[in-house]
């Protein structure tokens, strides 16, 4: 099942990389957001099958965004994008309902594996 994905990261560079990886593997990127607040709004608008969520972002961080999104849609599937050293925050995010995580720098096959597994395909 190809998935409709929203990418959330404050760095355009990271969004570009993730988008490339996902599109190359047949996924559709339906929305991009550069902070948590935007992500929450765009999640409502586009109802993606999956969200990749950065942790450290301005306005609203990734963990709060996970909480907000999961509050509105308890079925929301979210993968955290974390940097080394953010273990504690990833744990927080998982407790808030994130389904999985990938660690930067991204390895394309790891990202695809995580996406596949979370989407159940």
């Amino acid at each position, binding site marked *: 099942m190809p998935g409709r994905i929203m990418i959330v990261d404050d*760095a355009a560079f990271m969004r570009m990389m993730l988008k490339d990886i996902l599109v190359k593997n047949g996924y559709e990127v339906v929305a991009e957001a550069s902070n948590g607040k935007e992500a*929450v*709004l765009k999640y409502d608008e586009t109802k993606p099958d999956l969200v990749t969520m950065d942790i*450290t*972002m301005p306005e609203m961080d990734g963990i709060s965004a996970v*909480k907000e999104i*999961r509050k509105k849609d308890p079925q929301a599937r979210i993968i955290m994008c974390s*940097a080394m050293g953010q273990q504690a925050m990833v744990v927080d995010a998982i*407790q808030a309902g994130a389904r*999985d995580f990938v660690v930067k720098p991204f390895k394309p096959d790891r990202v695809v594996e995580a996406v596949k597994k979370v989407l159940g395909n």
Partner: protein
Amino acid sequence: MSSFLRGAKTYLLGAAVIALVLLEGCFFRNSPRLPVTSALVDLTGEVIDAQTRKGVSGAQIVVRDYPSRADLTASDGSFFIPRVPAGRQVLVVSVTGYVTRSQAIDIPEVPVFRVTVELSPFLGKITGFVWDAEGKPVAGATITVDGQYTAVTQADGSFVLASLPVGTFAITVEKEGFVPYAGEVEIQAASITVVKVVLESQHLKKGNDKIGKKKSGRMIILVEGFDLNRYVGVFLEEVEEHIENLEENLVQLEREPDNQDLVQSIFRSFHTIKGSSSSMGFQRMMELSHLMENLLDGVRSKSIAVTPSLVDVLLRGVDLLKNMKDTVALEGKEPEVDIQHITENLKVFLKRGEEAKVAPETTAPIERKEPEEKEVIAPASRKEYLIRVYLTLECSMKGVRSYLVINRLQENKVEVISTNPPLADLESERFGQSFEIVAKATLPEEEIRKMVESVAEVEKVEIEVQEELPEEKVEVKEEEEKEIVSTAGQKKAAKSLKKTVRVDVERLDALLNLVGELVIDRARLGDTIQRLRDFKELSHFRDLLSDTNTHIGRIINELQMEIMKARMLPLAEVFNRFPRMVRDIARNSGKEVDFVVQGEETELDRSLLEEITDPLIHLLRNAVDHGIESREERIAQGKPPRGRVLLKAYQEENSVVIMVQDDGRGLDTGKIRNKALRLGLASQEELEKMSDREVMEFIFYPGFSTNDQVTDVSGRGVGMDIVRRNMERVNGQVRIESEAGKGTTFYLRLPLTLAIIRALLVQVDGGIYSIPLADVVEIEKVKRENTYWVNKTLTALFRGKVLTLLRLKDLLQSKKAEYFEGEETPEVLYTVVVNAARAMAGLVVDEIIGEQEIVIKSLGSYIGDVRGLSGATILGDGRVSLIVDVPSLLWKNFQMGG
């Protein structure tokens, strides 16, 4: 080849130019850039391969600020670009297979200037880690690629081999005590390949000796041929943005050490730079930003205090990041700079911070919310499972990964009894590639397997059923879920998001040009409607047309305004970098300065922003360096010990005013007078007649400086010359107000846009010329009896001052424009009094037509830069009017006249 162009200085006039401009009409496409009045030089030379030293053919070479000056290199790498303005220029050289290069060159005023540009070919890079079979890093292992490129692993097992040729090569990894690894690796152009090599120990496990054949380890390619070049643009842009924010925020942090928003923002910037540079494989940038991120984390948790010396170190770190970024931009790779000095410094702060931590308040995150392993009464019809989870070799954050697995099980009503190794060890990653979970569940084995496998980076799951358990009550845990709901983030009112698109500036320029055309057409339409007046029977249609024309006019105006607005950027773009600069200058000169910025939201056309940056830097440097006194001096004068520098912008009608004000010692007019006398700029007699205000104008003369001690930041007086030159180039003005002992204020007045100006239309020798109103002081009808011969040239008295009268016609033809004694002079001289280039003069014209708003058109690349003219405009009746570049005309005339 095109030697006829060489040194052919063009001073064009009259009908011939008008014809050319009309021909050129459909090619107008450049932004209305005002030409610089410097000599034109033919540029020649070659582009060569930095390694083979041979010419590179087909490379595009462009003078960045004059895109029409470009060439493609011939098969031997040679190029020829005629008529490039002398001075500092940046050449941009690009061709496939090589790293694009921007090279700044200083072109002297010679007929031909030779330059050689070296291009570095795209090379590949390999990086990665060497581990032993137990997942521990192997230091000191030697990696050899293609038998000739070698690297040795660091303490963390990492290595980098840059500048490798492209192709598939043999790779070997050797280390005493391990079985050497040999394999192949593909290096792709401009790409980075990341590998992980696992070496097998030489000492085989007991009992395996008989096997004789030793396992030779393996290599895993983590990232293959990651095309750096595709991302480098975005990477650079973003890093630059963050560096700018960092400079601004760090300086502010020094003033507001308790501002948590600032700390957060700085932290995020370092964090993002770290993430991006690690993805690009830039180890040093990553390491440096990582350290600074950690420091900020300490600041956030209050274990590290914000002190000026901390900010100093951070700023130096940011400088280093900036340097590295610049090298990446130019060479496509990270420079081999030594970051140790700065990292040591940063680590000192980190260490202090850690010592300051009284108790480890950050207790283990996993433990914090981990469900307690209490003896729960085993639930209904359940089995106890032993689940062995194998993580992939490349798995990072194994601790969190194991937590995710446990969490996944718990979510699905699987009760986790214990783990091996224990949770604390799992969490701190004290385990190899696998761990075990003892759990109880009613679910079948397959379900549990699926659950665990749904977690990424799980390579294998082995499940053993321990024992069947009797049916018991289930204790449902609800606490956890509740907690999640209650801690959900605070809801903030969702601000409506601004929807934006990025548009190339060239598109806006093109749009503006098109609107310019519309303005002209509308003027012509108006002209035609006027002529219809003669046909009474058409009066009804004429009225209709006239109404429509008025309406079109309104819409064009709005259109114009909208495009102008789109081109506008807030001054913050420029202002933001100043707090850092002022702080540094003040610190270097041991002065205490409060720097206040106001009105940074004021908007200005983006091309103007570029023009004012240098002048502002000079003015601010002067203010701190020469204006503000030392602390002792200030106290002695009864002033507050801290100096104050104000940078303020505001809009005033159709212009923007930028004010640079200091409360320092003010300009010393006595010193300026002496210096002016010494330099022979004015006689004692002249100086005596001059007011202080007029005397101040001398500081704009090239090479004029009242400060005998030249510092490395300012001084030399070069700055003030540039300030005025730059301002005049964009039809702006500079004004000084200064009072001894109280301070100095500079006012820079700029037009809102470069594209449309108000001009005075005059007739000269049958042609219509436009003189920018910014240069015009007054229009005078001078009668012959009111003229005087001074030093054998014709002058008139203007506000009590002697005004030299110059024929605009001759000025434009670069002839001597003064009237010489004995010449016939007309009865009435129509004189436009102009003030530019530090000189006042009366330009004599044939007729004065009136004032009008004109759209500046560039003269086009075909004609190029013409001295004395800054562009052209098309009038309502379709006639072309050339725009007079007053400063350069006067400048040249006085230079010729001595």
